[in-house]
């Protein structure tokens, strides 16, 4: 019986060399589970086995075809979209991006800014008090309670993004004393939160 089964398999393999060397069939059968099902079907070619193998294969083949189909269509649609978008923006230029008449290469956007002006928008929004940057009412109260020097250190550290050493140089102090002030200020804020923050935030 054993050898008969083996013969059946060998015969199938011999008769269907071309079919079995098909890449998709090959990769389907490289899966252990699928190969077992394939062996069962060759040895016992019942309708049930054949259909089961067919179903497994369809799902397998579908998986590959579907994923590559969706992936390539996503890619080409994205390329197409970008092409259309570029075409659109080159045909319907914003006034600000179009070139000034009679002057080659100069766009309107370049004429908006006055480089000689003394008012720079970036500087307008900069404040040297940390309290101006705070939106949270409890934190604002806490910062109001700090001394002027403590606030100065916090401003330089968090708004200016300086390190304690850099702040020390700027204020002509030792790094140790700046870092002490910094820590003390943070502790004070923390204490304030512990006192006041609790009842305010517990309702959330």
């Amino acid at each position: 019986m054993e050898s008969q089964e083996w013969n059946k398999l060998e015969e199938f393999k011999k008769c269907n060399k071309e079919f079995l060397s098909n890449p998709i069939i090959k990769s389907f059968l490289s899966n252990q589970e699928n190969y077992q099902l394939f062996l069962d079907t060759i040895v016992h070619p019942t309708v049930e086995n054949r259909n089961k193998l067919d179903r497994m294969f369809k799902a397998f083949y579908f998986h590959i075809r579907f994923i590559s189909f969706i992936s390539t269509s996503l890619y080409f649609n994205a390329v197409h979209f970008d092409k259309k978008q570029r075409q659109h923006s080159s045909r319907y230029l914003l006034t600000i991006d179009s070139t000034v008449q009679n002057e080659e290469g100069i766009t309107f956007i370049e004429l908006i800014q006055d480089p000689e002006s003394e008012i720079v928008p970036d500087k307008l929004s900069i404040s040297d008090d940390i309290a101006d940057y705070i939106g949270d009412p409890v934190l604002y109260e806490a910062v109001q309670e700090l001394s002027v020097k403590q606030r100065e250190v916090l401003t330089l550290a968090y708004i200016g993004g300086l390190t304690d050493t850099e702040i020390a140089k700027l204020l002509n102090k030792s790094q140790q004393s700046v870092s002490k002030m910094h820590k003390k200020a943070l502790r004070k804020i923390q204490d304030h939160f512990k006192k006041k923050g609790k009842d305010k935030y517990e309702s959330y």
Partner: protein
Amino acid sequence: MTNRLYDLVKESRSNNEALETVIELFEPKLKKSLYMTNPNDREDLAQELKLKMISYITEYDVDAIPGFWEIKEKTDKARKKGY
């Protein structure tokens, strides 16, 4: 996993939840595709691609996938012609 996607896509024609799951599965590929265009247009592109995907998924002919025996028959026929 292999079987899951197969069933999900089959179901997508009538079941929106299945459709949503399939679209979510392709989310990483979609995100990658967004880099094809400039940052201002990416949200538009994402929407566009999702829309396209819906039609691709629901209109995909799942039954057109050739079966195991179908491919075998085809290779047999091609061989016969060759002789």
